[in-house]
């Protein structure tokens, strides 16, 4: 059974440990394909998730409460008949109650996965999955700074598709303006954006979209007390966090997103990277109707001190000629005469 995840903050390891196939929905072949004109105010991403849930009844879709559009998209997808859909309550705060919610949701997701035919994992299986994904995330994080943008996006997509590592190609030294791309999910159908930015004379040195480098933040380093592999002797586990606890903590403590309240963690993640990579401008990518990202436009400018271009994605995937034009003007503005 294939389980599509709509957020990188839902542990794919947990799904795989249940013996099911976890897939980031952004990279599914049929995702954002032929989305019809949208009703007023509906986000194209959320609508595409709803449509995929309806079109692929043999697969399951895990929605989240991270935004109103997805939360209510779940309502729309399940209002007529129950589908294989699950709504994961992603807490916005970082309080003890939020941690408790995340743990409880993870447990509830486990029960859902069992109803889909999955098997409740043993600690060893879960440890194994966690160790594998932790290692891939670590390698991808390390590979980020010198990587070519599109190739890096493909590597991250590969990880979110099957959990494996593919080394991205390294960026050739070039005089192009270094840009950061931040915002919501950037699916495979939208990767043309990288080419457009390069054609305009820029290069993405930081992919802070939901499906870029930022999605690799979960780590079990801080909870590394759990034995690294199934060969660990029982006595090594005494007094150490159980893998389920480490999994929950590794995600909730490292989640970096603008829906968090306060969303200071996002800026704490972003600021040093902007400096380290000598970013000269930021492209803020968001879907029409996404209030959470759109509202950050001004704050991004204030916090970074950099120019920010707002790019709005709608039902048509890719980059419109108008947006290509705007990108070109933006990059020209950043390029020293």
């Amino acid at each position, binding site marked *: 059974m294939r389980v599509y995840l709509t957020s990188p903050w839902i542990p794919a390891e947990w799904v795989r440990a249940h013996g099911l196939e976890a897939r980031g929905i952004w990279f599914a072949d049929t995702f954002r394909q032929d989305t019809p004109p949208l*009703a007023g105010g*509906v986000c194209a991403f959320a609508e595409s998730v709803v449509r995929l849930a309806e079109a692929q009844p043999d697969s399951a879709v895990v929605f989240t409460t991270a935004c*109103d559009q997805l*939360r*209510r998209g779940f*309502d729309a997808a399940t209002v007529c008949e129950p589908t294989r859909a699950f709504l994961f309550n992603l807490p916005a705060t970082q309080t003890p109650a939020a941690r408790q919610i995340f743990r409880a949701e993870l447990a509830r997701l486990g029960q859902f996965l069992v109803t889909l035919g999955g098997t409740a994992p043993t600690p060893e299986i879960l440890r194994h999955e966690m160790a594998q994904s932790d290692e891939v995330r670590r390698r991808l994080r390390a590979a980020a700074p010198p990587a070519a943008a599109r190739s890096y996006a493909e590597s991250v997509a590969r990880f979110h598709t099957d959990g494996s590592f593919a080394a991205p190609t390294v960026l050739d030294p070039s005089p192009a303006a270094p840009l950061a791309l931040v915002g919501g999910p950037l699916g495979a159908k939208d990767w043309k954006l990288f080419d457009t930015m390069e054609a305009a004379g820029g290069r993405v040195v930081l992919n802070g979209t939901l499906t870029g480098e930022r999605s690799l933040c979960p780590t079990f380093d801080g909870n590394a007390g759990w034995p690294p592999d199934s060969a660990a002797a029982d006595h090594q586990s005494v007094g150490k966090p159980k893998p389920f606890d480490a999994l929950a903590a590794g995600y909730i403590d490292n989640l970096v997103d603008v829906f968090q309240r306060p969303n200071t963690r996002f800026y704490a993640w972003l600021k040093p990277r902007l400096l380290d990579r000598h970013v000269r401008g930021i492209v803020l990518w968001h879907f029409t109707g996404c209030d959470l990202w759109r509202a950050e436009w001004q*704050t991004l400018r204030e916090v970074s001190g950099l120019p920010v271009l707002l790019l709005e994605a709608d039902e048509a995937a890719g980059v419109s000629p108008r947006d290509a034009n705007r990108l070109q003007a933006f990059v020209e503005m950043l390029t020293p005469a």
Partner: protein
Amino acid sequence: MTAPRKLSLSEWDNRYAELHRAGLREPAYGGPLRRHVEREQDFRLEQLQFDNSPAALRLWNFLLTENERLHQARARGEKIVGAMKDLGTIPVMAYALPGLRAFYPDGAWWTPCLMEGSDKLLQQAEALGIDASFCPVRAMLPAFQNGEHFPLPDLLLCSTGAVCDDFSAIAQRLEHLGHAIFWWEMPRRRQPAAGETACALAGNLTAPKSQVDCVRAELQRASGALGQLAGRELDAALLADGIRAANQVRRLLAELRQTVYAAPAAPLPALELLVAEMLALHFCSDREECIAVLEDLLAEARARRSRNQFVSGPEAVRIFWVNPVADLRAMNLLEDLGGRICGSDFMFTHALDLIPEDLPPLEALARTALADPMVGPASDRAARIVRECHANGAEAVVVSRIPGASHCAREGEIIRGSVRQTLNLPTIELEIPSVCDALQPALGSRLQALMETARARRTK
């Protein structure tokens, strides 16, 4: 006894003089409605129709003097609490503590309407990074920055999690601008799974005990912050008293709604009912006076019903109205076109339901907060609307969209679908901006078509 009638502001000038000559006694915030136009630039009042009763005069004066009364409270040394988004929960706690006065800065969303945009709040919000793609609650942002409306709160608390993205995003922007916010988590309400302990909530809802526990823990944190501000712990006894007082307001509102909505014709206009219902949220910043205002209105409605005196004819189409309107004029428009309100869901039905008094107070408040129609599935909200439509004999349903509000993109269709499927009632969805004059012909045509459809069904 004067027969019920709706008056323009000019007509109210004469009516006020007449009442004054007859010995009208008013509270400290009383006076002619005209002064709100002159002093506060509440120009929209000149376009509204008001009920002609002294009770309505008191209601309007209570509403329109809120900022002034808050400033007076601050001057007296009281602490001001800004509650945001939860609509009806934090104020119950704040008013339980002596020396605290809570209000919703969210209420600034009506300022552009009342001032007919002369305040330029929406344009200022845009300059602060929040443009017209957001709901009119963005007016709150510049109101905080320019300090020309409500006093800056001593403590700001905002619920987050399963809330509207618009509001959450605007509140976050507010925090970035330097206004510290105490965030508390509101989980998305769900049905208990098999084997989970369930808790009954108001409105025929249930939620898992784990969610109630979570909200209770968050309210406990909020209680600590409020207690610190008040210099006194909010203990169970104080909170229980606060809940009893809040329930007094809720009981009055329930009686008022029943008296008006169930009557053969409307004893009070829709606009005054909308304003009265809003008092449930934070008692319009004065709990005791709020009770007096509602008692007056209820007495007026009862007296009119007993005399068979109404502001609408018995032929008026019975409309159930969903969501608050950004422009108050829309409520007049509905009645001008031959409709009347027979039920409403202005997004805070949980603030109208009684808070259980037989549970530990924080648990009771947590259960009430979790019954918020906006934190659960749209189907729950739709189910309550269907029940109330059925109970009140609604002939049609209007879902009023709030411009830019993220929840409106989907839930309107779910609610309308449920109403059509269950009750086979005609429904329409309308978007009402802060000042709807330019759209009035189109809005009017759509409402008229709805009324005609509803009337045509009577003969079948």
